[in-house]
């Protein structure tokens, strides 16, 4: 584990991701509405490159709606490019089964630089 510079914070605006060569499979560093998170580029299911999948929101049960469904948490969910498992980027936990997790890493900003500890 080492604290390594990733990029200038201007180069990682909200809603974007940088894939960093770190760890065994790479690490995705995400800017979600100004907060930074990092998850392993490795889905805990079958090892797919998680960070190459879509970043989306998810749906929750909303019985008052005609379709009983509401879209929430846009931009916070990483969907695995293979089986589309949903992972909360902010915690690394699967939405369906929180016991299934992907590895998360510390990210910080200092002097306008984004640093990843991986």
């Amino acid at each position, binding site marked *: 584990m080492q604290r390594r510079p990733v990029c200038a914070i201007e180069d990682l605006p909200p809603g974007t991701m940088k894939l960093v060569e770190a760890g065994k*499979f*790479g690490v995705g560093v995400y800017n979600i509405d100004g907060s930074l998170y990092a998850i392993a580029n490795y889905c805990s*299911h*079958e*090892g*797919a*490159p998680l960070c*190459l*999948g*879509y970043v*989306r929101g998810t749906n929750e049960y909303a019985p008052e709606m005609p379709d009983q469904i509401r879209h929430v948490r846009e931009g916070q969910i990483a*969907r695995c*490019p*293979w*089986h*589309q498992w949903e992972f909360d980027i902010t915690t690394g936990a699967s939405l369906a089964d929180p016991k299934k997790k992907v590895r998360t890493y510390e990210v910080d900003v200092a002097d306008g630089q984004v640093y990843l500890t991986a």
Partner: protein
Amino acid sequence: MTTVEDVQDRTAAADIAVTIVDTDVHPLPVSGEVLKSYAPAEWKDKLWPTGNAVSAVPHFYDTPDSYKTNSLRVDASPPGGGVAGSDPDFAAKQLLVDAGVSIAVLEPMCDAQLPQAEDVLKATHNDWLADVWLGEANWHGRWRGAISVTAQDPVAAAREIERWAGHPYMAEVLMTPQTRGIPFGSPHFDPMYAAASRNGLPVATHLMGQTPFELIPIYPVGNPAHWHDFFASWPLLYVSHLMSLVFDGAFDRHPDLRVVFVEGGFTWALPAMWRMDRIWEQRKADLPHVRRKPSDYVREHVRFTTQPLEEVDLGEYRQYLEMMDLGDNIMFSTDYPHWSYDSPDWAIRRFPADQRERIMRGNATALYGLPATVKALPSELPGDVAV
């Protein structure tokens, strides 16, 4: 890191041992125009009528986010353009090199509404497959193909089988299991089974989620509303066909017939075999032509591909497979480049140790008559997985 250009370089073509056979891969034409170029002129407009629908054959159930994914792996699009599965060299890089597959069986998917049109469409796909995937691009000998045939006209299907029998890389016959209410054991299919058996070709069948209207399976108690429970129930289509093959005497009429159930998983076969054995024991007089225990027919005549593997506690899963004792009948598959792809690295660790070799290589090698070695692709080492 292996590139597409590397894959095309044949100069370092050493032989490597076959370790993993993938029995379910889906190639796609790079464009409709390319596919059409293999169709007879008088059929082009009939098979692909002009119209305003962009999707020629729509989903009747949709997989997660399929408007964007088209049911494909998001990371499998060739860098040179085209849809996932349309570039033999990029597929070779991702599947053969990166994932470590030695030999893969290619199964195109297509159906048409009317029998003659379907016969022509299948032949068109066979010509396209042989040219684009099994010709020059197969210099390494690691692709095999399926002879697609129409289930609606088994005599035409037999003709198509005879046309391709003897091709060095066509390894099986492929038909739909969505057979408009005619179960696999019906004598309707006899001309096709005879042609396949005569030529030593297994008959594989593969479920299709994008089809003409008549191929939508109407479930006996009605259809679920979502792909989730629809797909969880789909093995019951294979159970229905398997019971028919045994009870309606197809294996007695065709002693050399081998049937492969693709992309339906296989764990359902255990309770199905028990049920068949029990009813046969209790109602033998109803089945005078079924001379052996049903499960014996299954063990001799039937194979199953593994994908999609279930996500379940590993200890319990291995216990189940040990109890099932079907290690001679299961063949590994990835379903590349579909979204529900199973990685060989992950899959191999799911199986009991004493079944692994047969599942990953041995059973498919025996069934399809595959070699023990193939040509290595550049930068490939056995078991290597590139990032």
